[in-house]
């Protein structure tokens, strides 16, 4: 396979095409892996995330847009303005396949345009368009204007990637949006795209990636086997019925639903914002990404009342938690509306809600006199019109606008929880790893997540290793979520490596509940002609990618220390089945074992490890 990479020089508004050879693809596959490799080679050490030296890699993978199920995805990689190290995010919808159909397997945005532009890519032809009239507009309006201009209004034909006002105003918690509601949400990469003057990309074309497969018939046979496994699995059925929001009650029952900005493990009103409640109230339909048989997306509508919201996609579990549990907002209609507005403004809904939860705690502490006096006064003054108190849904909605346009307290929320809490003199209120807000599983109640979070290369994340699957669900094997068990370490490491491959090839991670690495070997052999491909090579490729990402942080000189926030290791949960637990014991036990099996020392890969993985060219970073 040859990977056709479109390089877009924004400074000169010119393009060129690189064709990457099969050797590079076999080592890094595509998506996240290829992005990490190119970023480490091409983004200079110390580059300003918003400067012209940073680059944005928008990449598909070899399975994207083929007959392989759940392959409607793409990956974005750049130096993150939120964490200062390598950022990456993944999104579904239709943009990934349409990018391939347009003639390219990936795009690199380089340099910086003086004036805002949007880019159309149609059957290999690239055009730059004036985006001044789009600048300042929300994602939904932007998509409508571009479709008007392209004359294609059927939303299943062609696809748009865009950034919202949050990114234009360089919020560090912005999300790259596509197909209106889908987000490459984490690490703030939309603002890097906006900093280059790019508002949107339209992709359309007639290329058929399936026709480029090595053994088309063999590939179809392999794909069919995988589809049947996924379609018939109980987890796929549950995702169809309730979406990811089914997790609200389940995680709350386990006492691991971070509530009141991680000050509690259970939320009394969890049912009110649950997937079950959503299914019985505002849910109107179910939807899937391109090539999906699961259909986990919710389509919701609030028909009346103060939180009336038009028919739109979402909300997901993470969005409900961050903007509901973390803030103690128990009005589901308000969360449906907040989700809609965050999508339009282009926010990472996890980071946004988590930052609002942090603000609510800071505001409470300011009123109680627990912040430095001058900071408390400043915060109260900046936030007095919003009144960000626990459970205040109107404050949440108001903050979406204020943050997108950096108005008053919104200017500080736009920086993310870490910077917000540091500025107002109470850093411990921000619950983050490497500067990125943690998602919706409290590791004090699900202790394998302490290792998953602490060692996540892009910052606090549940998608580098989803160890909830074995601690709570029992897949592939059930463990006690409160029990410290060394076997969990090997599984976390295996998931990290396997998921790195999944994000590179690229298919949806929801496949991994019902399939394993062995299910992809046939697809790689028949699709790419890698006839000697093995599970061992697949996992080693994932491990290579994981080490590459870590090397980026080592090269920057920070972000490789594997730690958890003080609140999780020093403050025990006050309620629920995990009452009295911290993450200290588990992390102290797990981390040395993890380093041993990774071949790392204090968070840095050892020379032998780089040799083993064929990463000799990057050994200078650790010397």
């Amino acid at each position, binding site marked *: 396979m040859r990977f056709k990479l479109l390089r877009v020089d924004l400074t000169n508004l010119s393009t060129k095409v690189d064709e990457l050879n099969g050797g590079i693809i076999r080592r890094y596959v595509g998506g996240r892996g290829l992005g990490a490799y190119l970023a480490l080679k091409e983004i200079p050490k110390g580059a300003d995330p918003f400067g012209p030296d940073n680059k944005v890699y928008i990449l598909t993978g070899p399975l994207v847009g083929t007959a392989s199920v759940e392959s409607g995805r793409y990956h974005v990689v750049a130096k993150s303005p939120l964490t200062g190290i390598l950022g990456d995010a993944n999104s579904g919808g239709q943009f990934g396949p349409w990018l391939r159909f347009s003639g390219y397997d990936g795009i690199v945005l380089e340099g910086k345009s003086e004036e805002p532009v949007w880019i159309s890519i149609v059957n290999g032809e690239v055009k730059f368009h004036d985006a001044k009239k789009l600048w300042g507009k929300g994602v939904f309006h932007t998509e409508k204007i571009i479709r008007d201009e392209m004359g294609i209004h059927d939303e299943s034909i062609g696809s748009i990637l865009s950034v919202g006002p949050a990114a234009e105003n360089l919020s560090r918690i912005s999300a790259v949006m596509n197909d209106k509601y889908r987000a490459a949400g984490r690490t703030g990469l939309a603002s890097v795209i906006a900093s280059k003057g790019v508002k949107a990309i339209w992709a359309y074309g007639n290329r058929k990636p399936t026709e480029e497969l090595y053994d088309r018939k063999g590939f179809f046979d392999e794909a069919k086997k995988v589809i049947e496994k996924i379609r018939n699995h109980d987890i796929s059925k*549950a995702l169809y019925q309730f979406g990811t929001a089914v997790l609200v009650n389940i995680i709350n029952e386990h006492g691991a639903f971070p509530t009141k900005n991680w000050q509690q493990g259970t939320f009394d009103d969890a049912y009110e914002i649950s997937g079950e409640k959503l299914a019985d109230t505002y849910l109107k339909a179910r939807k899937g990404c391109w090539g999906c048989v699961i259909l986990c997306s919710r389509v919701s509508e609030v028909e009346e009342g103060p939180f009336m919201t038009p028919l739109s996609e979402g909300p997901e579990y993470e969005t409900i938690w961050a903007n509901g549990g973390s803030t103690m907002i128990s009005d589901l209609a308000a969360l449906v509306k907040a989700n809609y507005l965050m999508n339009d403004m282009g926010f990472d809904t996890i980071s946004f809600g988590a930052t609002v939860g942090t603000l609510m705690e800071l505001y409470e502490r300011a009123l109680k006199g627990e912040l430095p006096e001058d900071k408390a006064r400043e915060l109260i003054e900046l936030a007095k019109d919003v009144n960000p108190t626990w459970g205040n849904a109107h404050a949440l909605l108001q903050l979406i606008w204020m943050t997108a346009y950096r108005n008053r307290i919104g200017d500080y929320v736009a920086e993310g929880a870490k910077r917000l809490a540091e500025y107002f003199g109470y850093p411990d209120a921000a619950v983050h790893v490497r500067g990125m807000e943690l998602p919706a599983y409290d590791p004090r109640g699900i202790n394998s997540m302490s290792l998953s979070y602490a060692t996540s290369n892009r910052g606090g994340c549940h998608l580098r290793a989803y160890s909830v699957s074995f601690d*709570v669900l029992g897949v592939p094997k059930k463990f006690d979520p409160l029990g410290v068990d060394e076997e969990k370490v090997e599984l976390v490491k295996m998931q990290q490596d396997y998921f790195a491959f999944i994000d590179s090839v690229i298919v949806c991670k929801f496949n991994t509940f019902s399939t394993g690495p062995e299910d992809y070997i046939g697809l790689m052999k028949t699709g790419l002609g890698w006839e000697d491909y093995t599970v061992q090579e697949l996992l080693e490729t994932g491990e290579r990618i994981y080490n590459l990402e870590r090397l980026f942080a080592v090269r920057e000189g920070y972000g490789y220390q594997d730690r958890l926030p003080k609140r999780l290791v020093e403050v025990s949960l006050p309620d629920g089945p995990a009452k009295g637990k911290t993450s200290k014991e588990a992390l102290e036990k797990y981390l040395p074992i993890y380093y041993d099996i990774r071949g790392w020392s204090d968070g840095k890969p050892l020379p032998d490890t780089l040799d083993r993985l064929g990463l000799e060219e990057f050994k200078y970073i650790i010397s």
Partner: protein
Amino acid sequence: MPIRIRYLGLVYRASGLYEEIIYLDTPIPISALLEIVFERHPEVMKLIYVEGGLNPLYRILLNGRDIEHLEGLNTKVYDGDVVTFSSPFGG
């Protein structure tokens, strides 16, 4: 003595209920409680009972602790306990 029973996800769909209270005279093991629940909600039994036992993707919790890490089906329920039937999920 009241026992609070919660049905989540696909089990919620099968029972038609999020929560109900079952009154017991004395503490009983989960295995006996299952018989009561299955009698009330045959659809729940069809869902979580497979040949050879319970479908491992459906977890039973007692006060938030998976019974697998307590005494399994022999775990006894007492006055005021919460028993949860949890569903498969993905996130």
